[in-house]
């Protein structure tokens, strides 16, 4: 049991997940700081992530894509707003087009990560904040659209073949 607290705030449209890991803070930080580790947990097994650019410094960018079961890719990006290794990281996560370019006018999520260590146990708080109720719904809807497009792409391939 590593998730110790979850706070779902409908009014402020934020989701906070606090987890505890039996590892020193420097080790837990590597989950974010090492792109090869990041790609092993960011995407679900059916949509594994591949991290391309990875610069965890203020103003820096992370670009990634997630590959679906049919080989279709959904691209995403982060813009780092602050980084204080190994204690905190803040960034904006958004959708990108197929060249990895951030899509204009599409919803983004602000994510804040804070780590603290006590006696070899590291607590990590991950908070996602959406600009508005609709904004959050839009993220969910866009997620649906992305998956739907991948499915359509697959159908096209079958029809063409």
């Amino acid at each position, binding site marked *: 049991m590593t998730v110790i607290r979850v706070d779902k705030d409908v009014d402020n449209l934020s989701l906070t997940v606090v*987890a505890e890991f039996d590892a020193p803070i420097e080790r837990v930080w590597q989950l974010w700081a090492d792109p090869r580790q990041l790609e092993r947990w960011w995407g679900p097994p059916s949509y594994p992530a591949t991290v391309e650019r990875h610069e965890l410094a203020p103003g820096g960018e992370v670009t990634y894509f997630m590959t679906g079961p049919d080989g279709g890719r959904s691209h995403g990006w982060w813009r780092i707003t602050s980084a204080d290794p190994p204690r905190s990281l803040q960034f904006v996560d958004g959708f990108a087009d197929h060249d990895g370019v951030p899509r204009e006018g599409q919803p983004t999520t602000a994510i804040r990560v804070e780590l603290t260590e006590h006696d070899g146990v590291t607590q990590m708080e991950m908070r996602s904040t959406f600009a508005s109720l609709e904004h959050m*719904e*839009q993220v969910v809807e866009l997620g649906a659209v992305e998956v739907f497009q991948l499915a359509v792409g697959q159908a096209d391939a079958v029809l063409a073949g």
Partner: protein
Amino acid sequence: MRDTVGKTVLGELDDKGVDVLFHALADATRRDIVRRCVRGELSVSRLAHAYPMSFAAVQKHVTVLERAGLVTKQRRGREQLVRTEPEAVRRARRALDQLEAAWRERVDRMSELLAPAPSR
């Protein structure tokens, strides 16, 4: 995360519905109106005071939101009261539940990565 989020939402809205919803939410004022009317109904005239625009302009925004199903408008006396649809809030809750599930799965994967290699 995206497939987790996508599955249950897909199919509740057709393409046209998605277009109308996206258009409704593409404007900062409209998003703000929805936010203000979550906690209770507000009259269009009261909303109009909150923005540097005419009553008619605010009314137009409300109409777009109404068409997308995000707010409902009711006439009471001389006032038109706007409220955010509880259904939309319910969907937000569901979205948060789906996002929570996605993050819990992420934490599970993180734990696996951090676990010392099993000694055999």
